């Protein structure tokens, strides 16, 4: 390649570079190119709830919004539970069982009939004596009546316990109704926070575009939005769980509908001394324990007469083939209470009586303990509710309104407004939780602290009952 060609080539290359350079220069004068990492951070993305933890949402969650007139009510739920909760029926059967025992325990013993052939073949006869004999046990000292009384008394215990079971179920239905109601409200409030988190991201993008925020702020706002989306999902999960638990307590499958009602309560503040007195005097558990003590007294009475021997009288008519005469037979028998005077069972019954006295005391103490705990929860919640209603929420609402006004007048930056609204909404969630706590403890305090509406209905004898019976079966 000679030099002239080379120089021509170089020359044309230079020209083409120069030609290329013109449009390059033109581009440099154009507005800033947009393909930057910041651009990607500020692009609107699909930030809807469906993009948070995709594929893991609790299905069938949505309430029947199209048919808004259909709602669940608390009274409806209570009626359903009274019919369908299995433990209420179980408690009924506990009464029936005790009544049946009473019936059985009072039945008079059946007579015995016997055919007797004695000394068959004596002297070539058919027997010295062949005949029929009837034997009857005569129960003494009113044992049967006492036994019947004892089990009738147990039926009364079972009645008190059935009342307690009804309280357990109704209290639980109420509590879970309010829990579901609170979950509904909290979901709404979490959605308010979600809108604010979305606004925070939008605002951060706007500030980024004006140079007032940087990539750090954008990353933070993106992650905050995700966190808030998770909070909404959590609230959805909670409402679903509460509703399913409520449905279980009612004892049947319920359609997923919104609940109507108010978490607030119109009742006055509960006075501790008044309610303590009421619980200790009227709690079905206390009444059952007292009933049980009466039963134990009857048991003592019953066992105190156990040693009195029954008289067993037998008699009959037969043929003495030896004498070839019709003769009669008579026997009277009774136990001689020399060794077994039922003294052990008597002592057992006495011990159970004293044990039951302590059971009453234990029940009282247990109620006091539970009441103390509930009253603390109640009082704390009531104080919060009152103060949130009177001061905290109005002040935060006013702070939000004032910040909005400041923003409207162009004197306050938008992030301040977002902060005010977030604050106000977070406190509203706390308020809802406190309303729920107050409602729950109010239900428990007014309902003799009974809950556990799906625990098996208890029997008429408390744990540790010694069950002294004259003739254990």
């Amino acid at each position: 390649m000679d030099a002239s060609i080379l120089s021509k080539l170089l020359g044309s290359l230079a020209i083409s570079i120069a030609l290329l350079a013109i449009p390059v220069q033109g581009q440099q004068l154009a507005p800033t190119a947009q393909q930057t990492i910041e651009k990607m951070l500020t692009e609107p993305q699909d930030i809807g709830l469906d993009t948070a933890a995709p594929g893991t949402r609790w299905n069938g969650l949505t309430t029947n919004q199209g048919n808004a007139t259909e709602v669940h009510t608390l009274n409806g739920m209570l009626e359903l539970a009274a019919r369908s909760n299995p433990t209420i029926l179980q408690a009924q059967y506990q009464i029936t069982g005790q009544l049946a025992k009473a019936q059985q325990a009072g039945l008079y013993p059946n007579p015995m009939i016997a055919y007797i052939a004695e000394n068959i073949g004596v002297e070539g006869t058919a027997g010295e004596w062949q005949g029929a004999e009837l034997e009857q046990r005569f129960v003494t000292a009113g044992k049967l009546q006492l036994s019947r009384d004892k089990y009738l008394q147990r039926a009364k215990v079972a009645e008190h316990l059935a009342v307690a079971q009804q309280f357990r179920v109704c209290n639980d239905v109420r509590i879970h109704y309010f829990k579901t109601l609170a979950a509904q409200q909290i979901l709404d409030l979490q959605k308010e926070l979600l809108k604010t988190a979305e606004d925070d991201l939008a605002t951060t993008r706007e500030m980024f575009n004006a140079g007032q925020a940087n990539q750090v702020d954008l990353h933070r706002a993106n992650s905050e939005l995700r966190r808030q989306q998770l909070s909404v999902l959590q609230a959805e999960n909670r409402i679903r769980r509460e509703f399913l638990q409520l449905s279980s307590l009612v004892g049947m499958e319920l359609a997923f509908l919104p609940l109507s009602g108010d978490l607030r309560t119109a009742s006055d503040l509960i006075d501790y001394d008044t309610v303590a007195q009421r619980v200790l005097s009227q709690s079905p558990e206390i009444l059952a324990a007292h009933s049980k003590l009466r039963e134990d007294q009857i048991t003592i009475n019953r066992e105190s007469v156990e040693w009195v021997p029954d008289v067993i009288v037998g008699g009959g008519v037969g043929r003495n083939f030896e004498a070839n005469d019709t003769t009669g037979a008579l026997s009277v028998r009774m136990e001689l209470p020399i060794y077994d005077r039922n003294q052990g069972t008597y002592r057992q019954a006495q011990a159970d009586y004293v044990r039951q006295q302590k059971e009453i005391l234990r029940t009282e103490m247990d109620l006091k303990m539970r009441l103390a705990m509930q009253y603390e929860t109640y009082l704390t919640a009531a104080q919060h509710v009152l103060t949130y209603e009177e001061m905290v929420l109005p002040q935060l609402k006013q702070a939000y309104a004032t910040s909005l006004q400041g923003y409207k007048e162009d004197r306050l930056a938008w992030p301040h407004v977002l902060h005010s609204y977030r604050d106000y909404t977070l406190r509203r969630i706390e308020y809802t939780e406190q309303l729920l706590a107050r409602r729950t403890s109010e239900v428990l305090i007014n309902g003799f602290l009974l809950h556990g509406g799906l625990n098996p209905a208890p029997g008429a004898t408390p744990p540790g009952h010694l069950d002294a019976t004259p003739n254990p079966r």
Partner: protein
Amino acid sequence: MERETSPRRQFIKSGMLAAASLAAGTTLSAQESVDPEEAATPQAGPITSPPVSDGTKKSPVRDEYDGFSRFKPSRGNDPDSDYYLGKLVPGFRTTEEGPAPFIAPDLEKLPYVMKDGAKQFELVAQNVRREFLPGYEMDVWGYNGSMPGPTIEVTQGDRVRIIVHNELPEPTTVHWHGFELPVQQDGSMTLTQNPIMPGKSYVYEFDIHEEGTFFYHSHVAMQEAFGMVGWFIVHPKKVFDPPVDRDFGLLFQNFHIKANQTISNSWSMDWNWHTINGRSGPFTTPLVVKHGERVRIRLLDFSPMQHHPIHLHGHTFWLTGREGARTPKSAWIPRNTELVGVAQAAEFEFIANNPGDWMFHCHMVHHMMNHMVEQVGPRIREGSNVDAYMTNLDQRPPVDMKHSEGFATPGYPQGMQGMQMSEKFMKAIWSRREVQGMRATWPKSVHGLMTLLRVLPDDLYQQVMETDDVPKGAIFEEIVQRFGTPETYQKAPLMKMGH
């Protein structure tokens, strides 16, 4: 000294009434009725009547001096000429008429009585409410119901006695800034005197041998930050030549006042409210002068920590003095912008040879606004506004994540959206005589440390200052007709608000 409570109270009351009429009415008429005592006293000092242009009077005043015209933008022929840029071009007023009256728009003058051969003034240090903007009443500190305090105006050679009453909840002293006075009168707290305790009074008395632009202020730093300052103008015994027709005073201050707050945070390093003579643009009262007049503007920066580059549109002014003394003519400097530092004063003189409405402002961008707020949120979003949020405080509207138009341009939006001006606000802005006939949209452009210089031909001046109900835009359009290019002029869209 014992305080004479009741007469002084009476004075303050009438002073405040005068302040109210000042806010509602015109500067000139208010100036005339500013002080009942002064009117009753034969010793009423500085002239307060406006200059009168009397065609019949013989005057040395010409239209043109060595190529410089007092009636059209011009420089003259020779930078070394006495008349270059109007340097020594006299006003219409003669030196024999005495100094032109000092006018600090939106401020009053402090009256005095002659007693024992001295001009006796009374200053009451107290907390004050000042309406920075219509509807924005701020709690500041000042004197005699005013922030800045009322103007003390005397003549070189006077003896002054100033009785200071302290109605503040803490001690104070008053410093007479710039005066070469006996040290006992200096007002330096604890250095030269005991503090004036709350409820007590103190008497300052001294002879004034200097002339120039002075001021008085509290010598407690935080009290200064709260606005405790006032003009102390000393007119020269021998009137300066060339004589001026107008002598204005503009006192610049900064405050930091949060939204939904009326009290300034004197600890702040940041300053978001700016006042000229205690008012913020567009509530500052324009300086209105006649075409061809020689104008002096004295400018004092009493901001706590901010210096201000002051810029005048449409004119080149001579810097004829700083607060120390009048500058010899040989050292005068022509300027468009002059940096005025904290506690400094500057004196500008120029011939108003360019008719129109001219901006006069600090050039720091944050000082050309009333408060800086990030322009994000519903205000800049399409289809979104704050009222939607205010209708239901328990539920907020959803946010549209789509960007507004213009977002593709980095930096969008940089324009401040401006504060919402209510009808009442606009009414107050337009209620001043000095703004009659300006373009309907003018309040949108004047904020913070901004005011206006209006240069008007005699007849238009007369219309603005002496007649009522001049339509919006009328005066400006007339100036365009006479001095501009009317064929290209576009009227301002009439703003919905206003009167």
